[in-house]
């Protein structure tokens, strides 16, 4: 173990240097400070150049045995990531360091994202064909761990391999074993689609309250549960696993005590379809997925839209196109959310901006779906989903009431004065149609994807009716603009430049704006939660600015919508590297737009 500790120090030091050459997203890997002899662990500290995270708290803890975990856990940030060597968590080791119950099962690690990996045995297997003794092979497990970390943080392996070769030049077997372990760890991260869990920095000083650490996926799942409680409807999730969305399914499936029903379907189409069926039955229905899954759900979403039933589709965006970069973040599904269906099929699009905001965004998406009987697309992304932040818990009583009532009685009369139910007789205010669920006597009706006659909902091929219904569906969604908060500028309302963002770029843009203001630049900021429809005042707000910069983790999607809608000459700032913006990138682009000499 002593040896192991040493090697870590060396390796880590190396990696520390090495990583400094990747300025956009540096990380440090350090041997634990104050490590007791024999404790095998290392810590990864990640920071954005612009933001100084205080203290010695780490983001990632790699614990090669229970002792390491025990001694180092207090140095790990709440919500941080633990990678532990499950091979070492046997009774003897647990006992040796005084764990009475396995900390993996008693809730000790609840606050963290835990990856259990059988590192010893995987290393032994990875080096099995080499000419090394099993005991020696086991020693290479640290390199396996380093490989995993390198995968997660997109670090190249070559420098480490070169270092290993130089360091152990005289012992080719050791070189071979270490390199094999390093590569195996790296491949393991890839093959099991491991994601870097990142901290989203909370810019505002901590307000008084009770806090917990939460990842975006957990917050999304909790938001769904909350929406169920707030609406009084049973939650149904139809889903098919896909990185980085699967954890929402996993989390929800653990909360059946809320009456939640989760269904792992045979594919994404079935997941969405089952949710739509559940919605017809009166459930608060969700389907969760990532980009490739949304590409498959378009037809079903179109049906929901035509039937005017509530359905929330959650897209945890990842790098595209196609399979793309499953474990990297990107915000490139916005246009698909807007237009990824045939025909005229407008639907609301809502985007979460921080891990904890996923909770509120899920409730808001549910509110709109229920109130307007419409599919709603909720966009999060890999960075939010797997990243964690400290969250000041809301009072349950402060959460909105999003209850809706089912129609239980006839809503009109026929020519002879008999009561009849018209499933497409709309609410004057919201233009929503009544939601009458099976089991309700007298309101039997059939819904379908063929065009429906106004009010009666009977199949209709009438040209004018089709135009009317198309306009009504559109007007219903557009009307939501008045049921959401107006766009609110952070700043003077008339600065030299406005930065407009959406989604997970909030943190980066906010910190960039703060720096620039400190520098004395005149910069306003606007972050959009509702992307379709836009807040009703957005046009008025935007046309006040002569310079608008729209930083996006795509090739410029929101900026297209803004330009088309408001004819404002907004400028895109694009990044598609699977990584969030650094503050510096945003600052440079803003200054370029302002023509400030940098």
């Amino acid at each position, binding site marked *: 173990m002593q040896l192991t500790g040493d090697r870590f120090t060396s390796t880590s030091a190396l990696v520390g240097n090495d990583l400094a050459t990747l300025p956009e997203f540096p990380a440090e890997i350090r041997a634990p400070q104050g490590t007791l002899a024999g404790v095998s662990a290392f810590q990864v500290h990640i920071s954005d150049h612009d933001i100084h995270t205080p203290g010695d708290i780490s983001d990632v803890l790699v614990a090669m045995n229970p002792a390491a975990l025990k001694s180092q856990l207090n140095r790990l940030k709440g919500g941080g990531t633990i990678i532990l060597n499950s091979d070492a968590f046997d009774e003897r080791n647990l006992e040796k360091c005084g764990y009475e119950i396995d900390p993996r099962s008693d809730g000790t690690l609840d606050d963290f994202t835990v990856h259990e990996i059988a590192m010893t045995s995987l290393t032994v297997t990875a080096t099995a064909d080499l000419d090394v003794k099993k005991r020696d092979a086991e020693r290479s497990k640290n390199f396996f761990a380093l490989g995993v970390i390198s995968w997660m943080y997109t670090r190249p392996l070559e420098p480490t391999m070169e270092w290993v070769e130089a360091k152990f030049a005289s012992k080719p077997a050791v070189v071979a074993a270490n390199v094999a372990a390093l590569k195996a760890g790296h491949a393991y991260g890839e093959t099991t689609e491991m994601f870097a869990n990142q901290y989203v920095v909370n810019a505002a000083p901590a307000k008084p309250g009770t806090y917990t650490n939460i990842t975006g996926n957990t917050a999304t799942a909790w938001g769904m549960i909350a929406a169920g409680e707030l609406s009084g409807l049973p939650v*149904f999730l139809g889903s098919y696993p896909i990185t980085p969305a699967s954890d929402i399914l996993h989390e929800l499936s653990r909360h059946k005590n809320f009456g939640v029903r989760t269904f792992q379907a045979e594919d994404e189409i079935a997941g969405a*379809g089952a949710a739509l069926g559940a919605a017809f039955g009166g459930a608060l229905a969700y389907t969760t997925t990532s980009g490739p899954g949304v590409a498959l759900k378009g037809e079903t979403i179109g049906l929901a839209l035509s039937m005017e039933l509530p359905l929330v589709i959650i897209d945890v965006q990842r790098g595209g196109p196609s399979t793309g970069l499953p474990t990297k973040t990107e915000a490139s599904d916005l246009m698909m959310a807007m237009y990824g269906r045939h025909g005229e099929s407008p639907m609301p699009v809502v985007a979460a901006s921080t891990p904890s905001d996923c909770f509120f965004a899920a409730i808001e998406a549910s509110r709109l779906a229920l109130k307007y009987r419409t599919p709603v697309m909720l966009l999060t992304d890999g960075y939010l989903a797997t990243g964690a932040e400290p969250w000041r818990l809301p009072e349950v009583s402060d959460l909105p009431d999003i209850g809706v009532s089912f129609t239980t009685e006839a809503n009109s009369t026929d020519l002879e004065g008999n009561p009849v139910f018209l499933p497409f007789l709309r609410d004057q205010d919201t233009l929503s149609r009544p939601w009458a669920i*099976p089991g309700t006597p007298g309101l039997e009706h059939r819904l379908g994807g063929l065009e429906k006659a106004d009010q009666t909902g009977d199949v209709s091929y009438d040209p004018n009716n089709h135009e009317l219904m198309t306009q009504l569906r559109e007007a219903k969604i557009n009307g939501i603009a008045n049921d959401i908060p107006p766009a609110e500028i952070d700043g003077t309302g008339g600065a030299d430049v406005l930065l407009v963002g959406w989604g997970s770029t909030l943190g980066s843009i906010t910190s960039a704006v703060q720096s620039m203001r400190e520098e004395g630049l005149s910069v306003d900021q606007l972050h959009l939660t509702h992307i379709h429809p836009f807040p009703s005042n957005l046009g008025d707000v935007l046309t006040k600015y002569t310079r608008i910069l729209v930083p996006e983790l795509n090739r410029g999607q929101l900026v297209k919508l803004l330009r088309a809608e408001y004819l404002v000459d907004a400028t895109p700032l694009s990044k598609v590297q699977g990584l969030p913006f650094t503050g510096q990138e945003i600052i440079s682009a803003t200054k370029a737009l302002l023509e400030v000499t940098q």
Partner: protein
Amino acid sequence: MTNDSESNVTLLDPTKRGHWTSDQDVRWCPGCGDYGILAAMQFMHAELAKDPATEIKTEDTVFISGIGCAARFPYYMDTYGMHTIHGRSPAIATGLAIARPDLNIWVVGGDGDMLSIGGNHLIHALRRNVNLTILLFNNQIYGLTKGQYSPTSEVGKVTKSTPSGSIDPPFNPISLAVGARATFVARTHDLDRKHMIDVFQQANAHRGASLVEIYQNCNVFNDGAFDAITKRANRAAMMIDLVDGEPVRFGADNEKGVVINNGRAEVVEVDDVGVDSLLVHRADADPSVSFALAELANDRQSPTAFGVFRAVESPEYTDAVEAQVADAQSDGAGNLSDLLTSGATWTV
């Protein structure tokens, strides 16, 4: 919601067909086999309503379909219904069943809807044993899209999309369903209302997923596809009626029968083998037997079995869902505040 041609009394009396008939004009081609199936379904419901124990109600009944001529079915039943998208009805119905295990859910579709685009959802619904009664209207053609061959069309079929004849062997829907571990599988045809009613009732009474294949004539694009079997003159020689607990016999004078020979179902002359050698049909027999019986139909020249091939009790999917929810709630329902504070918390 009213039907002018019938008196209100009829409409209000669930034991009358009219009670189950919606106000929509039926829009199938005149002479389409679908009419007979619809009538059987409406009469079956009326029939069931006579038994007060069933408590059958229009509001608790749902018909879900995909797209195709067959898939128009829900519009004509005065129950709840969804006419959805092509091929997805088993998946959509599964969601409804999980959310609402109290409902009686029927799923309707054609051979294209259920076996071509929707094949996967069908076999998964069967495997899961979700409490759905699934009706496959097999007319061996795509009717709605004006006559292309389907996954049940015979090899060599000349259609608009196969002017030189189709080249792929058809599915045998019963074999496929048994291969997918279905717990209830049956076959009936559109010309025999009594048989349909009987099979529909059994299928619907089965707890779990039931698949009923219905030989259905599309008189416009594939007229007479089943004549060799179901035409009155051919029935005796070509239709094998499966009766639970009885030896499998058929023929004008019951002179023919089925034996299982080396694992394979074979048609024999009863006199040649003796009654005791005949297969005694048991719907709860090993799936291998159901499979063997299903395979009889692969060849259009051979007699084809009708009735319930397979009916076995097996845990039903939504029951299991409910049990897990009940179990999770055995210590009380979830509390939102507790959930929010279930991780490590700190106070500032």
